[in-house]
């Protein structure tokens, strides 16, 4: 723990310095509707704590949870079937790449028309942005399994299922965790964008409402909350990862 604190010290100092510059610039400008100071943002967060934590954070987390879950299932499924068959890989891989050229943000208003103001239009934005890194990272993980290890399994007489369960699945686990850690912030951004474009609750929606009221600190406060949520979730996943995988450096 002590080492950890030491390792993070340079980042903490830099962050603190940047915040001070921000604070000074904001005080100098004195136009909180354009550039609120960090202190004003924190104050706002405290003032709005009840609606933010009781209504909007849960709404956003619901979208993130559902979107992330669908993305994980979809991403794993695509990675597994691409690994099983080269034909499937050739068919799907280019489409997966192409899906990332879609400007999701520009299409999101349409999703609202298709799926309404409920949760599903936001979930779609989230999934479109999130399944991609999961698919590609996990697929890379399958590709990285050493040929010699697969061959060794074959000489033991292992069939495809045994090779998958006893070799590929454990070997891909570190890649899976990397994928999740990448996917969490992306899914939170996806949910916020979805809410920004059309919703009745959620941190993205709240941020936008504050924008229409020219409340600069009110725009930033929910965004601050979003990034804290992302960091907390990534940290939790990191703890699980450390518990499950002690051998990452040995492969």
């Amino acid at each position, binding site marked *: 723990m002590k080492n950890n604190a030491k390792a993070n010290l340079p980042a903490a100092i830099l962050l603190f310095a940047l915040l001070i510059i921000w604070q000074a610039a904001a005080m100098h400008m004195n136009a909180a509707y354009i550039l609120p100071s960090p202190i004003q943002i924190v104050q706002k967060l405290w003032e709005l704590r009840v609606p933010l934590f009781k209504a909007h954070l849960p709404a956003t987390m619901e979208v993130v949870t559902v979107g992330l879950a669908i993305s994980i299932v979809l991403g794993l499924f695509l990675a597994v079937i691409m690994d099983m068959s080269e034909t499937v890989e050739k068919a799907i891989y280019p489409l997966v790449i192409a899906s990332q050229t879609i400007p999701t943000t520009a299409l999101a208003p349409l999703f609202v028309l298709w799926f309404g103001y409920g949760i599903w239009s936001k979930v779609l934005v989230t999934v479109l942005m999130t399944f991609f890194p999961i698919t590609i990272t996990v697929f890379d993980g399958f590709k990285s399994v*050493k040929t*010699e*290890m697969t*061959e*060794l*399994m*074959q*000489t*033991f*007489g*292992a069939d495809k299922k*045994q090779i998958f369960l*006893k*070799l590929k699945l*454990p*070997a891909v*686990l570190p890649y899976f965790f990397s994928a999740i850690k990448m996917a969490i912030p992306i899914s939170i951004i996806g949910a916020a964008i979805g809410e920004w474009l059309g919703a009745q609750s959620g941190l993205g929606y709240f941020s936008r409402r504050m924008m229409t009221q020219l409340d600069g600190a009110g725009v930033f406060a929910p965004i601050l909350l979003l990034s804290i949520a992302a960091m907390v979730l990534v940290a939790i996943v990191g703890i699980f990862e450390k518990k499950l*995988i*002690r*051998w990452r450096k*040995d*492969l």
Partner: protein
Amino acid sequence: MIPEAMLEFNNVSLTYNGEAAPTIDNLSFSIKRGEFVCLIGPSGCGKSTIFRLVNKLLKPQCGEIYADGQSIGDHKNYCGYMPQNDLLFPWRTVADNVRLPLEIKGGLSKSEMDERVNEVLKNVGLESWGQKSPSELSGGMRQRAAFARTLLTGCDLLLLDEPFSALDYLTRLSLREWLLDQWERDKKTILFITHDVDEAVFLSNRVLVAEHYPIDSLTSVDIPAAYPRSLRSLSEPGIADIKERLIGMLRKENA
């Protein structure tokens, strides 16, 4: 077919996909049950290709390979292969790595497997290391664990592909003696690839030399020294002569 042969190649040829010249050309040789045979040859001459043919990772274009009197085409579990790198899975403990061939073959209960694993770990001198992770073992111990895993394939024919080449000199020396003890106790048939002439002479009843490329024949050289052998057996006059002859054969190929 030779009746007492544990492994027999009968006019086997193999050309790699997209290559004009064959790597193995009409090769015939055989190994008797219980023999310890070393296969030597310069790097890249196709020694490992012979192994890949035996364990069916490659299929010959023509010819037959017999293991224990049966064509390997429809034969399962006839040879245990030990690769150059130990390839222990880092997410499994040492004991779980050694157990892998048993798990794949199936048919044993968990306690029966544990029993076999403990027994073989004891035989290779790793009985107190079963619950460790492979990264906690030294290079020599990792190779012993890999050998234990190979033993649990339950096969009488063992293919060892330069298993000691990545180890330091002293570890290599002691593992050679250790391997001979294992062989004398378990009465397995061992085919051992190396490019180290000392190692080949020290270990084997017989050395097979890959003199030509493509490999169309293997020259057999008997090593007339009694077991158990010690480092000193290597410097006996008759053995020293054989060593020189073997080095000469490999040099001729390289020139």
